[in-house]
């Protein structure tokens, strides 16, 4: 497992643990020590540290949640105009026996996958696929929508600009706001800017403990404000991008707790927690008539923001 910079103190302990295991020595005490140390570290994470955890390549990614939580998952393809964006996985499956539509950014756990999926950055065809399917779900399938988000942001390239990236984001965002079904999104890792809001807008936004959701990445924010990326840590703190801060700002609706150490170390436990959270939210949302749900969804977004008269 790749250790993050702030996890450095664990390196020597992990090595010792490996040595003892190799030699068949007792490891119980050492494991306890490691756990304690890890808890100490994770209790003191800065916002920028959290960003680094959110980006850890071994964290479960949307496709992992979809595969683990849904049965009979069937992927649907294409935007019906130009392309099938592999960076967006989208389709139907049964969640605890109930049909649902699920979509999520494919990020990739290794360099090969990351190249193939553009590290989870959607192209216009990805947002258009989302928009098309959300409309079909809303009109024809009438099942809840679950969106798993882990993206550094929307794709930026000459090709994506010329193919109408800003327009495609509008389409996807608009379709989600208009959906006549419950929409839950879970930010499992990175929630970067327009790329994230384009596919995460719904009745409930949940975040994992070590995910982030921000108008820009700390590096991009630093680039904008300071013309270099060195202030990224400071910007990360000022952006209020952690789940806890965003919950206290009433921007998100709930936090799915990760154990200290992060989802990259406790994959199955975290996937289970996400499943439990989704089930509980769905039960609540399904009690309400969809018209009421939609009305409150729109009210929520129309009331977002802080200003004075």
């Amino acid at each position, binding site marked *: 497992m790749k250790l993050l910079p702030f996890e450095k103190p664990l390196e020597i302990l992990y090595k010792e643990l490996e040595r003892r295991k190799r030699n068949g020595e007792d490891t119980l005490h050492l494991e306890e020590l490691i756990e304690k140390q890890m808890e100490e570290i994770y209790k003191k994470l800065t916002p920028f540290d959290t960003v680094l955890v959110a980006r850890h390549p071994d964290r479960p990614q949307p496709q992992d949640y979809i595969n683990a939580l849904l049965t009979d998952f069937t992927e649907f393809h294409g935007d019906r105009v130009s392309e099938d964006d592999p960076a967006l996985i989208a389709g139907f499956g049964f969640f605890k026996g109930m049909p649902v539509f699920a979509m999520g950014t494919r990020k990739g756990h290794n360099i090969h996958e990351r190249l193939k999926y553009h590290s989870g950055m959607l192209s216009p065809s990805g947002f258009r696929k989302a928009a098309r399917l959300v409309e079909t779900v809303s009109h024809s399938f009438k099942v809840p929508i679950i969106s798993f988000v882990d993206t550094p942001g929307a794709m930026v390239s000459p090709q994506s600009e010329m193919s109408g990236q*800003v327009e495609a984001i*509008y389409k996807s965002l608009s379709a989600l706001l208009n959906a006549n079904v419950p929409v839950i999104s879970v930010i499992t890792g990175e929630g970067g800017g*327009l790329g994230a809001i384009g596919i995460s807008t719904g009745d409930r936004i949940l975040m994992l403990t070590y995910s982030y959701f921000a108008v820009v990445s700390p590096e991009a924010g630093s680039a904008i404000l300071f013309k270099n990326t060195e202030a990224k840590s400071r910007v990360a703190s000022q*952006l209020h991008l952690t789940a806890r801060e965003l919950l206290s700002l009433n921007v998100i609706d709930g936090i799915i707790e990760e154990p200290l150490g992060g989802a990259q170390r406790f994959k199955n436990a975290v996937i289970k927690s996400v499943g439990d959270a989704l089930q509980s939210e769905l039960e609540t949302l399904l009690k309400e008539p969809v018209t009421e749900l939609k009305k409150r969804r729109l009210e929520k977004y129309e009331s977002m923001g802080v200003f004075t008269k």
Partner: protein
Amino acid sequence: MNIFGKKKKIVLPVIQGDGQDVKVRCNSCGRLIDYDTLKENYKICPYCGYHFRMSATERISVLADKGTFDELGEPIQSVDVLNFTDTVPYKKRLADLKDTVGLPNAILAGSGKIGGIQCAIGVFAFEFLNGTLGSATGEKLAELIRFAGKNSLPLVVVFSSAGERVQEGIFSLMQVAKTVSALNAYKEKEGSLFISVLTNPVLGGVASIAMAGDVIIAESGSYVGVSGPRISEYVMKRSLPKEAQKVENLMKRGFVDIITDRKGLKDTIIRILKFQNKWGKL
């Protein structure tokens, strides 16, 4: 994405001449232009056609019929909700802007006539933090959209914005969802007509909002896209060719209905408004 520090490009390079003459130097051809001439010429360089940036009030004065523009509702002020400081505290930036620009946020919104037709009119103020989308700006735009819907008016918005306002963090991003939600409601109404006007530049979430236009008009030579050059360079690790965001190219790719220079803009909008049958009727 807002790009500070580029003030030189935003504020006119004014050169004080002898006596009361004021001359400015063209950003493009470098010639000296009499400021009064420039203003009368829609701030287009009479030598090379370069479009100088216009302030929101200048825009309104050339877009709305004389004396018809009424600002909408109470002024809404931006707030430093995240206690943000970049090179300067955001609070101070806001206070300074109140003095220098004289606007409470980055949009001027109200009702007015264009070619005799009553419209809901919004104009982004690039001079206010590069027209970035803070909470107050987003709320005012949403208010305008709701007003257009309630009163069955065509909605005309002139966009110019560097995108989201980083200093308001997630709240800036949420304004995109807020305004799109308001637009969805507006667009549901039979006969609603959102004329979106792209001027230089329109970036980020504001560009996404602008692309919701039923009709999209662009001022020639404008740039529209996800992010400005600096941020693109950071994300892509290489520069984004400007051509990719040029409205002339976006029109070839199907995203712009009409391109016009600034002088033809008002006439184009009037024509489009007149092409509409009476609201909701045929």
